[in-house]
């Protein structure tokens, strides 16, 4: 529909674009840039953990004033883990993953011309961009960036006397995160409104692809929980700059008693984790939604138990808002609360188990097309199971007190939300790259990328469980102060080698991504023979997505390999092929699935 083409300048098309497809690419590239920074940081601190007293010229090169003869200082070690966590959780896995794919897919999969408000969508991206810039700037302030852990517990984060990073670095962190939250909220509201109001004719809620359900529920959790983090951050700003005592009380530091009276750090912990825990699912649910779609498409089978999948997304979302206390079993809160949170936390295992079993059943008797996207999705199921199971140990308050804040926790959450979500993101990129850029990514490089990455992911995080069970606390700059951890040195070296190889291997992906944008094979309209309606749009992007009318939807998204005789696996495909686009009307006598 060429009359939809406004005259566009370079600026309105590539920079201040209001088109959801362009915005999604902007989110992706910014997220990838931040991801590169965060991965490089993790490689630096892994060097420190494996060879604590060894001098590295690469550390000398990158850490400048924060190192002594090529050995990083303890302050900057803490800063690196803090910023690595912050960037990964928020900038890569929230904005980079959810921002990219919600923006790209919501209008395309529900059959809308664009987001409900293109302008707000643009604002959402530019606020995210601004917050990314501020976060990057904070790396260069004199006393170092924020270094109180990504959870920024006060008083450590409130008092520059306690750690140098709590000066300007922390201020920038708080400003950056506040802007980031605004960006997320604007984005999430837009997603919710769009899904509720702009579905095409026939696209009932019960016909939404599972990606849509995941993004929709994710947006709701974000709207419920992000404002609480904003208020936590604002109160912290007040404590830091205006002398209030929300979180601080009875403090003697650097030889003097501070004036703070009556506040409690536990309040901050509650506020932080009221976002912090749902945040895990804000990160994970989109990845699971993407996986549902990709596993079903590439298995050439309907997703098993669509309704159960939707119900479990809802159950996880609901439970995620009432389990935050499991991060605080040993914070000094009332033990009775600990009991309640143990109960609700372990309940999450049920919907999670349903999801995992349903994925496996979807694979069963499929006709698996092992594209890179499919491999990453299968990898996600694997790491989600591995990481999820150890949650049963950590969610149990009685066990948590023995291993809280050890490397066991690091291994657990990296597998269940870090690696899983990254795998979901990679799967999404490989799968929808043709939709984003009109070209295909190379599969050989994709295979290399996948196998090296999953081997390294397990190589890093599986042994990590055991050093945690040896009692090694996380966030230790070095283990040398404790002879009882000397026997863990070799394991740390192995972990670091896997981490370095895994980190460097991401170059394969970056190369594949950027080269394919320009040199990849031109995509066909529906390269994966998928059912969802984003594959009915033309390969070349146009404003409004569909030329002419938006197609009408007649069925759910998972009529793969539908047979003439539903009970006979040898009978012919009902529609002559193993996929049926959602826009295909029901045949006479055909039953809705």
């Amino acid at each position, binding site marked *: 529909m060429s009359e939809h083409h406004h005259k566009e300048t370079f600026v309105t098309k590539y920079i201040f674009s209001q088109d959801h497809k362009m915005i999604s690419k902007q989110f992706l590239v910014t997220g990838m840039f931040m991801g590169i920074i965060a991965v490089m940081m993790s490689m630096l601190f892994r060097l420190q953990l494996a060879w604590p007293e060894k001098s590295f*010229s690469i550390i000398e090169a*990158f850490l400048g004033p924060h190192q002594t003869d090529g050995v990083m200082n303890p302050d900057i070690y803490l800063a690196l883990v803090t910023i690595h966590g912050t960037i990964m959780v928020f900038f890569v896995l929230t904005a980079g993953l959810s921002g990219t794919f919600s923006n790209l897919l919501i209008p395309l999969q529900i059959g809308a011309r664009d987001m409900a408000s293109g302008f707000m969508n643009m604002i959402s991206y530019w606020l995210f961009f601004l917050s990314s810039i501020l976060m990057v700037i904070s790396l260069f302030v004199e006393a170092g960036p924020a270094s109180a852990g990504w959870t920024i*517990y006060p*008083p*450590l984060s409130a008092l520059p006397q*306690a750690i140098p990073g709590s000066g300007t670095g922390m201020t920038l962190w708080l400003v950056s995160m506040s802007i980031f939250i605004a960006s997320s909220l604007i984005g999430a509201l837009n997603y919710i409104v769009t899904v509720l109001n702009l579905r095409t004719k026939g696209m009932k809620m019960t016909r939404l692809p599972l990606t849509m359900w995941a993004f929709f529920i994710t947006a709701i959790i974000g709207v419920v929980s992000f404002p609480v983090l904003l208020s936590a951050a604002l109160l912290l700003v007040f404590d830091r700059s205006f002398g209030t005592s929300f979180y601080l009380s*009875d*403090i*003697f*530091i650097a030889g003097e008693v501070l004036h703070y009276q009556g506040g*409690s750090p536990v309040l901050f912990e509650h506020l932080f984790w009221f976002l912090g825990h749902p945040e895990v699912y804000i990160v994970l649910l989109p990845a699971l939604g993407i996986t549902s779609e990709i596993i079903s498409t590439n298995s*050439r089978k*309907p997703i*098993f*138990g669509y309704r*159960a999948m939707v119900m479990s997304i809802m159950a996880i979302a609901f439970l995620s808002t009432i389990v935050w206390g499991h991060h605080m079993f040993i914070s*000094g809160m009332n033990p009775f609360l600990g*009991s309640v949170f*143990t109960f609700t936390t*372990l309940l999450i*295992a*049920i919907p999670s*188990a*349903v999801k995992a079993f*349903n994925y496996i059943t979807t*694979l069963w*008797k499929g*006709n698996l097309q*092992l594209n890179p996207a499919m*491999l990453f999705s*299968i990898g996600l199921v*694997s790491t989600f*199971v591995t990481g999820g199971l150890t949650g*049963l140990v950590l969610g*149990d*308050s*009685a066990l948590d*007190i*023995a291993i*809280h*804040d*050890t490397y066991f926790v690091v291994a657990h959450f990296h597998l269940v939300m870090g690696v899983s979500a990254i795998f979901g993101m990679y799967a999404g990129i490989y799968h929808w790259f043709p939709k984003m850029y009109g070209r295909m990514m190379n599969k050989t490089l994709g295979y290399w990328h996948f196998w090296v990455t999953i*081997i390294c992911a397990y190589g890093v995080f*599986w042994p990590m469980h*055991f050093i945690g069970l*040896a*009692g090694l606390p996380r*966030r230790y*700059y070095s283990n040398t*102060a404790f002879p*009882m951890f000397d*026997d*863990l040195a070799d394991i740390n070296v192995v972990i670091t080698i896997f981490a370095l190889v895994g980190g460097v291997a991401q170059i394969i992906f970056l*190369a594949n991504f950027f080269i*394919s944008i320009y040199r990849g*094979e031109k995509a066909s309209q529906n*390269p994966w023979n998928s059912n969802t309606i984003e594959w009915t749009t033309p390969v070349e992007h146009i404003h409004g997505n569909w030329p002419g009318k938006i197609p009408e939807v007649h069925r759910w998204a998972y009529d793969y*390999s539908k047979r003439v005789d539903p009970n006979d*696996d040898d009978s012919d495909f009902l529609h002559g092929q*193993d996929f049926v686009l959602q826009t295909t009307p029901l045949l006479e006598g055909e039953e809705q699935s």
Partner: protein
Amino acid sequence: MLALFYIFIGVAIGVSFWQITRILDFRGVVANDEDNAKQGKYAIYFMVFFYAIMVYCLIAMNVIMLPESASIEGEHDDRLFNITFWLIGIVQFIMQFLIFYFTFKYLGNKNRKAKFYADSHKLELIWTVTPAIVLVGLIGYGLWQWNNVMDLSDEDAILIEVYSQQFRWDARYAGDDNTLGLGNVNYIKGINTMGVDMKDVNSQDDKQVTELYLPKGKKIHFKFRSQDVLHSAYMPHFRAQMNCVPGMVTEFGFTPKYTTEEMRQQPEVIAKTRGINKVRSAKGEDLYEFDYLLLCNKICGASHYSMQMKITVVEPEVYDKWIAEQPTLAAVIK
């Protein structure tokens, strides 16, 4: 400058990569039957690798793990942990097998057709109810044990205050009256480093120490305070941990089960110590001997990684003798 050099190397690698890919065929994009067969095979290879590292770690890394609980309350922790670990271990082995085996078994082929199988309420019921039942057991045992470890009602327990600051631990025994005198940061002055109110009668017989001595077999009731930022008193051998929060007193308790000497004779501890000493002697360092430790386990600043206090568990008679020798605060702080 060095940073620039590294960035330059990075760019150079990128450019050469770009050149290499020009030669490579960038046309292979959608998996065909050949790819499926190959990748399915790799899935099996990966599964073998994965099971190998899982089993290897489970066996070889047993020796580095914490020895059996040194507190009576921790016994059930160990048991609950073992039950949970066996359970998740079995589920993990089965699920991972299914994931990668199915990837291999059902790999795509032009001549095959996938089964149209969208729903089975029976199956879904099974895997909703089974985890639910198992969880009821785990939650029940867990909550019962949680109540155990959090039970501080024993009036005869020895009361000890553990006090944290950047980056050291101190402790205060409650003395003969077994009541701690009040403490607040405003009283910190000179050698009164824990900010004890010396006007309080209960403070007079309190005893400040830098190392913990605990009698075997008696319940210890810890109270925790912090003077600056959050710290966490982590005593891994006793399966105990509690945050120290400025402006607030937190509590925890346990009963030591083995003296330090007894613990050193335990086969698990001997094996772990041998491993540690192998590393240490290779580096030419002093030999290590097992000791209980209290570690800081909440990020608290630059020297967080070295903040610790030694704990020695002794027979009650030895403890009585030791505590009698410690000077009271009234004697130390005039």
